[in-house]
């Protein structure tokens, strides 16, 4: 299937999902869907650098929070409209990805991973000490009086934004995966030395990968303050984002755009169910346990099982 066809299909489905705002009466659907779709974006974004390129990023929260706090800054500055916030947050997060990559990608992948964790903590400390965005106390981002774009409720607008973001992330991931860039990234993942010897500009491609990945993660974070009307550092920088964005592609399968989607839907829905029935820590324990179980026993995830099963049938 050509990328253009795929992108069209994805966005048609997105608009169909947005149409649900007119039909579904249960508000809980929109909240749950927002959260699950947010994971789709984060998992897909993580996988561009993780599954496609082979570099582990522990700092999902850092990029997510960059998106969130750009929204806060723009809101405090001049009550920026949502589309502008989304664009700005995406760009800033992308630049952060570029920066971290440039500083550490010449070293081994291990050091890049640790540096991303370092980024999270350093940024968290900065935000906690920065009064303009509320510091440790947090900041309020209130919904505008009139809901723009004709939605009946603000949550519907945020839901719609997240649907579009998920569609964008999937379209970008698939475009990367099937392009020359994708093959270069796969070569880097399989054997960086051989890739370099085959003419692949490894540093440049890795930087593209971190920038794209960071940008998409930041994009997911831009609507976070609006969703709760309030944001504070410990929730924006929560380690849960890192664990989930790693577990979901790992469980779904890291080789293609479909894996993170499957993982995010599966794990996201499980967590929604668990969250309403048990303590939230059990929720996290389940995610962590699934991560460990899958990474040890099913390294290629659900998609791996499917292709292995398919191969046996031939």
């Amino acid at each position, binding site marked *: 299937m050509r990328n253009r066809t795929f992108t069209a299909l994805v966005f048609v489905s997105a608009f169909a999902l947005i149409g649900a705002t007119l039909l579904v009466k249960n508000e809980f659907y929109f909240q749950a869907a927002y959260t699950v779709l947010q994971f789709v974006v984060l998992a897909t974004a993580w996988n561009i650098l993780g599954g496609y390129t082979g570099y582990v990023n522990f700092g999902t929260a850092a990029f997510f929070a960059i998106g969130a706090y750009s929204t806060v800054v723009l809101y405090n500055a001049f009550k920026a409209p949502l589309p502008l916030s989304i664009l700005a947050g995406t760009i800033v997060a992308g630049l952060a990805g570029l920066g971290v990559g440039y500083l550490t990608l010449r070293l081994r992948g291990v050091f890049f991973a640790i540096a991303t964790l370092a980024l999270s903590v350093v940024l968290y400390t900065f935000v906690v000490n920065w009064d303009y965005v509320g510091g440790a106390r947090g900041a309020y981002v209130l919904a505008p009086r009139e809901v723009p774009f004709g939605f009946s409720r603000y949550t519907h607008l945020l839901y719609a934004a997240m649907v579009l973001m998920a569609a964008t992330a999937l379209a970008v991931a698939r475009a990367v995966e099937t392009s020359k860039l994708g*093959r*270069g990234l796969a070569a880097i993942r*399989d054997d960086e030395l051989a*890739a*370099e*010897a*085959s*003419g*692949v500009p490894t540093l440049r491609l890795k930087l593209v990968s971190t920038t794209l990945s960071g940008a998409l993660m930041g994009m997911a974070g831009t609507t976070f303050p609006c969703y709760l009307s309030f944001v504070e550092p410990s929730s924006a920088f929560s380690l849960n984002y890192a664990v989930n964005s790693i577990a979901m592609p790992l469980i779904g399968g890291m080789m293609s755009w479909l894996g993170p989607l499957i993982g995010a839907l599966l794990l996201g829905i499980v967590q929604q169910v668990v969250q309403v029935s048990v303590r939230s820590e059990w929720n996290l324990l389940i995610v962590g346990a699934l991560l460990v179980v899958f990474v040890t026993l099913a390294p290629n995830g659900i998609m791996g099982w499917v292709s292995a099963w398919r191969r046996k049938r031939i």
Partner: protein
Amino acid sequence: MSALLEVRSLGKRFGGFTALEGIELKVAPGERVGLIGPNGSGKSTLVNCICGALRNESGAVVFAGEDVTRLAAHQRTRRGMARSFQVPRPFASMSVLENLLVPIEYASKGGDEEAMAILKDIGLAAKAGLPSGGLTQVEMRKLELARAMAAKPKLLISDEAMAGLAPAEVDEVLPILFRLNEAGITIIMIEHIMHAVMRFSQRVVCLDAGRIICEGTPGEVVKNADVQRAYLGA
């Protein structure tokens, strides 16, 4: 005729250990050069420095008249320098065909049909769609060479492509190198299999403990006392 590859006073150290010192080498276009030396003499280090996988501290690498010492490995590959690895390094998640698409897309900027052509030429066409991780030893060596060929190089450095192969298998790989040379590709062959090196090379260079100890025709080098001492001990 000016040299295709010139190595001038090249030196490489790892901490306190001097791996290479004062290496001088000139390779003419179309030549077949053999590089020999006992284990640990620095052959692979020299290859890595020439190709850009390692940075040499002193000296220069000049390729087709251009000083490439500061260039990254992928830039040298794009300028026509290709190498195969001593231990095959296939792109394990890709099929045999896809392995060749990487250098074709990034180095030679060619088309997909060329990949099939190379596979046919080298005898791997039947395995084109199979995962590259499941090949036999000799097939992996051929894939290594195929991948280097796909970059359309002017210079091919074959790093122990035949190490560990049975004599029949060596006879499968050696003609490939001869054919490439006939097509105009300059080849530097690093090998331990003496009869292969001697049959193949027009000129042989011998390395020992990081220095060139002898250079000449295969016949001359084999008779050289220093070379014999390096291999057999004093």
